[in-house]
């Protein structure tokens, strides 16, 4: 094919560049990038809509039906209905700029063949193909969890699952999606399916159950305990994946309650269970997970922080993508907002929200109770993006959930403070640590807090190399870990209420 008949597609906000021949359905190159087509590319839903920032993409009848005249005029299109007719710069609605795919170096024991490590997140799935001999990452694919249309958080996923045929549907979705991601990884690395000898998956307890076909009903109510929490080994044949049918797929065991193998993998990655010092690990997700431990014992807990850190339920909240205020600082008493993608601000993402409230507290615009000091109901940050009183309240709820979890685990350690705290996950990597301390989300000085990246994926990769010694059940480590049910503790509500407020002083030290 002559070079001049290919076109360039730039995906915002990541800036990723793709090339595809003229006349290619836009769907094909986007699908390879992990973009989801919820209705199967039939133009029946709006799930794949993109905004054309530069270039043109023609509108057809299906798009006129699903998009308003205003949306069409603003450049919105259904990606599944467009054909590539020229260079394009587009922004994906479903794209999450902050998806982390770990590339940290790690120690490994070489073995032959290829392995796949998969972090099955409630929101995001990340898969890596590895050469088990060299430890090299051959390909990475990320996608939004295709179950997400049936509920954003674990509880709504459980709710969908418990009325038949919900569980079967969610199971089919995730199994097919991981299978497709593996096929894409192999395609991208020009590797053969027959060389794949191992697949390791990690995720929270709900993801574990839904993937492995275990009834989630026990997770729908108090005491939220499932009896089947262990390592589950399935075969590629059972899963209908395009791999040799006896290739094992192992979903690593859960730790208790909603704390799953994503945190077990986090323990493998951070080696908290081997540490002399007391060390913490916090995954700041919708379902916040907290670990505090050392070589003697490891305590873990989960706490429902809600989606505020991801910009959800915030009046002008949005994901960390183009147009989001991602940082707010105070310079000479003036607010400065950093907007992703250097455009006009459209909203605010989680890291911006934490910064903004920290700034409001320092400027005396927000009182320690969380109330706007001047009695206003909203506060304009910049370019028409405002923070409302209700937004501050949402953040107070989210930060109190995390902070009370940390405080309660700390209490069980006799009030000892951890020497180090690792922050896992996308938000943990981007949040300003000084602001997180200011609002009391992570009540430790920034130099004690380390962003640790995607520890779940890193741990899953480590498991690929250590599985040959054992089966992946991690009996020893699981024995060392104790799950603490926070909500069952009679003090939880009191501590939670205490943690709802902010501290008076700008410089809190322990």
């Amino acid at each position, binding site marked *: 094919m002559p070079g001049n008949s290919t076109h360039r597609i730039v995906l915002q906000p990541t800036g990723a560049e793709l090339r595809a021949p003229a006349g290619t359905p836009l769907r094909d190159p986007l699908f390879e990038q992990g973009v989801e087509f919820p209705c199967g590319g039939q133009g029946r839903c709006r799930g794949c809509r993109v905004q054309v920032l530069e270039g043109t993409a023609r509108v057809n009848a299906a798009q006129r039906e699903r998009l308003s005249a205003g949306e069409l005029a603003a450049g919105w299109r259904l990606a599944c209905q467009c054909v590539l007719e020229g260079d394009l710069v587009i922004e994906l609605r479903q794209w999450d700029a902050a998806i982390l795919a770990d590339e940290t170096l790690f120690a490994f024991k070489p073995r032959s063949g290829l392995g796949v490590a998969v972090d099955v997140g409630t929101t995001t799935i990340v898969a890596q193909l590895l050469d088990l001999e060299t430890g090299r990452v051959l390909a990475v694919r990320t996608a939004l969890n295709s179950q997400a249309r049936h509920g954003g958080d674990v509880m709504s996923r459980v709710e969908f699952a418990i009325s038949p045929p919900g569980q079967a549907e969610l199971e089919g979705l995730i199994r097919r999606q991981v299978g497709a991601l593996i096929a894409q990884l192999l395609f991208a690395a020009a590797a053969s399916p027959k060389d794949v000898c191992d697949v390791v998956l990690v995720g929270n307890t709900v993801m574990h159950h839904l993937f492995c076909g275990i009834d989630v009903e026990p997770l729908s109510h108090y005491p939220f305990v499932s009896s089947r929490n262990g390592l589950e080994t399935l075969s590629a044949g059972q899963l209908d994946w395009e791999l040799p049918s006896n290739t094992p797929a192992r979903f690593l065991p859960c730790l208790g309650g909603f704390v799953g193998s994503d945190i077990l993998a986090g323990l493998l990655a951070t080696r908290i269970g081997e540490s002399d010092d007391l060390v913490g690990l916090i995954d700041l997700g919708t379902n916040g997970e907290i670990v505090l431990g050392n070589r003697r014992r490891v305590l873990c807990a989960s706490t429902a922080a809600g989606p505020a850190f991801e910009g959800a339920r915030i009046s002008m909240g949005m994901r960390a993508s183009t147009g989001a205020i991602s940082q707010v600082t105070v310079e000479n008493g003036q607010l400065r907002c950093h907007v992703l993608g250097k455009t006009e601000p459209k909203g605010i993402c989680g890291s911006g929200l934490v910064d903004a409230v920290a700034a409001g507290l320092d400027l005396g615009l927000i009182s320690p*109770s969380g109330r706007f000091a001047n009695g206003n109901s909203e506060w304009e940050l910049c370019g028409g993006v405002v923070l409302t009183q209700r937004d501050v309240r949402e953040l107070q709820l989210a930060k109190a959930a995390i902070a009370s979890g940390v405080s309660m685990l700390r209490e069980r350690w006799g009030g000892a403070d951890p020497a180090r705290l690792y922050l896992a996950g996308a938000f943990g990597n981007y949040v300003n640590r000084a602001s997180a301390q200011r609002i009391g989300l992570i009540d430790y000085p920034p130099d004690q807090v380390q962003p640790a990246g995607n520890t779940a994926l890193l741990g899953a990769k480590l498991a690929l190399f250590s599985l040959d010694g054992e089966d992946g059940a991690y009996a020893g480590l699981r024995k060392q870990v104790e799950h603490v049910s926070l909500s069952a503790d009679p003090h939880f*509500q009191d501590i939670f209420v205490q943690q709802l407020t902010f501290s008076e002083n700008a410089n809190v030290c322990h």
Partner: protein
Amino acid sequence: MTVLDELKEAIINGNAPAAKELTQRGLSDGRRPGEFFPGAIIPAMDEVGRRMRECEFFIPEVLIAARAARASTEILRPLLVGEESVRPAGTIVCGTVKGDLHDIGKNIVAMMLESAGFRIVDLGVDASPEKIVEAVRREQANFVALSALLTTTMVNMKAVIEALTAAGLRDQVKVLVGGAPVTEAWAKSIGADGYGKDAPAAVELARSLVA
């Protein structure tokens, strides 16, 4: 400012020691226990409810205000016996439904209802339909107020209504429901008598149903 006005202020500001002291001072000045409710406690909690709705007060402020109100009612309640004018507006059995441990919202509603003059029988969290039926019978309740914070436990509200019906008590009580995932439509679909979108709404609802 009368002692009742001062008491009202103390409750709104969440000052429990002051509320206690003012109540005692009012009594030793010769005020009847029944005067404190319409004169201070009820208007104070109505104001707290208003501020909560406006987002001016958040959970901690509401809880400390309710605690201050309780410091006052704890002194008054034993003295109310026999005082005709202040018979409780009704008896409310409340609780968070089975399988759910969320406490805070239910506590706020219970304390506001209590301050509004209702007698509260709080069954706590994870309250089974059997336990609720038993309490309704034992306490001769005329209201059941149910809370749920999870979409997966909200279904247990329906189980409570069914259990009340099966026990032949459904006509004796009005069932009120609330909690983050609960909606008006849901309340209707399970045959509840009312839905309160927040604590002040629950108080208004209970008042309208006794009127």
